[in-house]
């Protein structure tokens, strides 16, 4: 009698596991990294400036004109050689800006390609 009871309890306890799912299945789903998607930097809008050339001949005339126009008769000067250096420096700054912008565009294109519609 005891044996039958023991067997019955064993069947009762293990009944659900017989023939059922025994292993836990683990799924790994790859979630793509969120896109940074920064907008491209806003383009510059530069203000116009005017160069005035002063020589020993026209200096008085230039200052007189400035006074006439109500502008302080003072000029910030550059020699012709320094003007060339300034032009070159600006060209280099512009090139660096263009290079950086281009790199940014290429990175965006490579890592954040636009989805095909």
């Amino acid at each position, binding site marked *: 009698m005891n044996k039958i009871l023991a067997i019955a309890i064993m069947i009762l306890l293990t009944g659900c596991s017989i023939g059922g799912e025994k292993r836990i299945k683990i799924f790994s789903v790859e979630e793509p990294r969120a896109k940074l998607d920064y907008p491209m930097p806003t383009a510059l809008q530069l203000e116009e400036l005017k160069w005035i050339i002063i020589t020993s001949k026209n200096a008085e005339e230039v200052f007189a004109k400035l006074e006439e126009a109500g502008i302080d008769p003072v000029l910030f000067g550059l020699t012709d050689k320094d003007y060339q250096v300034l032009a070159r420096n600006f060209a280099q700054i512009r090139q660096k800006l263009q290079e950086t912008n281009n*790199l940014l565009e290429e990175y965006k294109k490579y890592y954040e390609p636009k989805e095909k519609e």
Partner: protein
Amino acid sequence: MAIAIMLITGIAGAGIYVMKLRADNATLKANQFKLETAITEQNKVLEQQKKDFTAILESNKKLNVLINTFKKDLQDLDKRFTKKDRDIGKLAIDRTGAIERIINKGGKNAARCIELASGAEHTEAELKATLKSEINPECPALANPNFVEYQ
């Protein structure tokens, strides 16, 4: 009695063997499926790598072209100041008004180049420019993409 035991044992053994075969078969099928999936994934990875490699090459080529354009632009700028032993200082003394106009126009063009380099949109005139008289001589490659320099 002995025959009966042998018969039962034999049937049981055969049953266990068949069950083992079925289990092996299931394992092999699962392995086959995994291998096929792995091959498909590997092919996809290889294809993507090929595409990436092409994109990298193209991008490098583009940047190299850009850097060469930069060199040429700087050389052109130097040429404008020193062409045929030109001395811009002396020219400015002799023809002050004309040089002032040229320098102001150059400054305006250079400022426009900076705007374009920072990502500004081209104007229609800049895009249409194909003649030397229509282009921005400070940065023709950037400002006038349709201009082809006459060699």
